[in-house]
């Protein structure tokens, strides 16, 4: 049976990926801003008529005269020159029916390629609501290709397209003479085929933007949103976290009583349950953080935030274009670094990649909140703000400010050049509850599978290293001091003692190199094994506040703002830049900053008398 190679093309944010997910059953990320998809994605589907289709989802492009790496992918695939990708036999050109002027221009540009095409008028429901009447048969006749309508976000919203795929492929539409004016042609066709009321829908957008983009109110709204987000991470999550905490403790107790005393019990209770359990507790906080991020992404607010902060980015020599990749990095630096493909200026792109790991990713959240809860008193400030939330906000801010500083330093040597912004401000959209739920479920699965794989594996490995060799008979002190891990930790103290770390932290930093949150599980395992009374001290948080000085905690928090402890980030930097040198520079400067900043914080703490045992 033959397979039809088809590709989805169109302007950014016209709903290609939503349609792709609908047709192929994929779960690619969708959001309401330009540049969510930055590489080609492949999916398969079978039409009602039994035709097998290999469908490509391509990054959105305003023009085939590409200005950024993501647009170049689309240009090359359409032209059939993309390496390892056959020339598409059918281009499915997706148009936002509420913004046909801009989108039809791109379709006309694509038509010049001389490939068979189908036009899809997506978001036709929104167009109807705005009172836009489109004469579909006439549009098909004028354009010279079949036209179908679709609603990418509704089940069965792609039926017409599926039926169109079943028909024999249309002949390539007629191209215009070289040098024709696409805008003039788009205007001519629209005048013939589309009737729309005078700017009704736009008026609403502009009324909202009057608030959201207001010089004073807009900034106030932005800060309020960020602020409430960090408050929510602490206060909303607490009840569920307490439950999970009690649950893991009870599980440890139960298993502890069932299993006989010995290495197996220690492995399960101290290694797996203490290690993995200590990280699972943070699931509610991470989900709340993602709920905010996903809702903001869906609403169309993010490009507005980029607009408000563009001038601040400019002082660091970056454009508002870097804003969305950096904001994605608050979830995780890996997609953030990939999103830099939408940045036109190659140097801006490199600098954005370099500083993306300084944005506080969700994997740091367990470390931050654990230490904050253990060392910062629970207090209300001004009767309104939770002190925990304020400290967390400050840690995020420290990451952002140092990122701007690094960008600034790197820029100073550069000659004066222009950093284009040119960002589309999309229509506002109410976040769809089903999409939010799906997105959260996906994040929960990712988080739990990390716990189930990396964290359990590392916990078991660490348990073994921290348990063997066993101490010689009659030895004093906890057994872990004699183990391999204990010795490595003590040896590392030569380097780490000047920044206030103890040997337990040193031990947990090694597995923490693989992923940041692993350090929490590693600490749990190390302290669980080290505890003289093995049932007394399962709870990590009170244990840390009893064993560490405030200075040590502050120093470790500072270390975590900077330290590049994430193999995935370094791997994606290698892939995106194609250079080990960039990986070396990133890791090198981040470790140097981590050590330097932690050194300063520790020594200031010593001066303030915060270095002693509690």
């Amino acid at each position: 049976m033959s397979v039809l190679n088809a590709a989805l093309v169109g302007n950014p944010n016209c709903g290609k990926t939503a349609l792709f997910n609908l047709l192929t059953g994929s779960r690619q990320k969708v959001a309401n801003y330009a540049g969510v998809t930055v590489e080609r994605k492949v999916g398969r589907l079978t039409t009602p008529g039994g035709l097998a289709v290999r469908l490509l989802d391509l990054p959105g492009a305003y023009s085939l005269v590409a200005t950024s790496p993501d647009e170049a992918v689309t240009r090359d695939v359409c032209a059939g020159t993309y390496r390892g990708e056959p020339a598409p036999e059918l281009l499915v050109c997706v148009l936002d029916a509420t913004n046909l002027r801009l989108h039809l221009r791109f379709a006309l540009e694509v038509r010049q390629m001389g490939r068979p095409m189908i036009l899809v008028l997506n978001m036709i429901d929104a167009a109807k609501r705005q009172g836009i009447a489109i004469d579909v048969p006439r549009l098909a006749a004028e354009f010279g290709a079949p036209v179908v309508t679709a609603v990418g976000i509704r089940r069965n919203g792609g039926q017409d397209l599926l039926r169109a795929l079943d028909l024999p492929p249309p002949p390539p539409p007629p191209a215009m003479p070289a040098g024709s004016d696409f805008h003039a042609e788009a205007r001519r066709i629209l005048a013939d085929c589309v009737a729309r009321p005078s700017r009704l829908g736009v008026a609403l957008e502009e009324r909202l933007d009057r608030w959201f983009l207001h010089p004073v109110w807009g900034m106030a709204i932005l800060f309020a949103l960020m602020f409430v987000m960090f408050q929510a991470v602490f206060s909303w999550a607490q009840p569920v976290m307490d439950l999970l905490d009690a649950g893991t403790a009870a599980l440890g107790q139960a298993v502890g009583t069932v299993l006989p005393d010995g290495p197996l019990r220690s492995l399960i209770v101290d290694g797996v349950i203490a290690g993995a359990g200590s990280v699972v507790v943070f699931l509610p906080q991470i989900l709340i953080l993602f709920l905010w991020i996903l809702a903001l992404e869906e609403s169309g607010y993010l490009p507005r935030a980029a607009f408000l902060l563009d001038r601040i980015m400019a002082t660091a020599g970056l454009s508002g274009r870097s804003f969305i990749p950096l904001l994605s990095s608050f979830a995780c630096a890996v997609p953030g670094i990939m999103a830099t493909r939408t940045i036109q200026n190659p140097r801006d792109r490199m600098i954005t990649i370099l500083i993306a790991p300084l944005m506080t990713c969700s994997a740091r959240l367990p470390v931050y909140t654990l230490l904050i809860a253990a060392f910062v008193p629970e207090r209300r400030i001004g009767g309104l703000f939770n002190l925990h939330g304020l400290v967390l906000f400050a840690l995020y801010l420290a990451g952002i400010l140092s990122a701007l500083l690094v960008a600034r330093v790197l820029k100073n040597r550069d000659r004066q050049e222009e950093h284009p912004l040119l960002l589309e401000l999309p229509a506002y959209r109410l976040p769809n509850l089903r999409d939010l739920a799906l997105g959260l479920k996906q994040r929960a699965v990712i988080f739990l599978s990390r716990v189930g794989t990396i964290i359990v594996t590392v916990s078991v490995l660490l348990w073994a290293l921290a348990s063997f060799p066993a101490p010689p008979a009659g030895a004093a002190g906890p057994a872990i001091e004699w183990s391999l891990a204990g010795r490595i930790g003590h040896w590392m103290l030569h380097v780490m003692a000047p920044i206030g770390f103890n040997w337990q932290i040193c031990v947990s930093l090694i597995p923490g190199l693989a992923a940041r949150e692993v350090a929490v599980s590693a600490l749990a395992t190390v302290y669980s094994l080290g505890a003289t009374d093995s049932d007394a001290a399962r709870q990590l948080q009170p244990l840390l506040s009893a064993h560490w000085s405030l200075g040590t905690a502050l120093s470790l928090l500072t270390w975590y703002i900077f330290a590049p402890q994430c193999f995935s980030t370094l791997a994606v930097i290698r892939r995106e830049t194609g250079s080990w040198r960039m990986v070396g520079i990133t890791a090198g400067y981040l470790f140097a900053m981590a050590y330097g900043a932690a050194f300063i914080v520790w020594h200031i703490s010593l001066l303030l008398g915060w270095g002693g045992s509690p």
Partner: protein
Amino acid sequence: MRLNELKLGGSAIIDHVEDHTAGDPVAERLRALGFVPGEPIRIVAVGPIGADPIAVGIGFTRFALRRAEASRVLLRDAA
């Protein structure tokens, strides 16, 4: 008059987009985005610091531009 000189809330008709350098990619992109002769344009919002960048409404879309980018857009008399 140029687009960067237009006041908040003001509207005008685009005359043309000029290249600042040979083969100016920013000018090229502006033209692709619909900044073409005869197109009405209006300033929807201005940034909080130094009134930069600006948000312009063109057709049924809004774009954020820095003033330096907007200075490439020449306008006919205010409409």
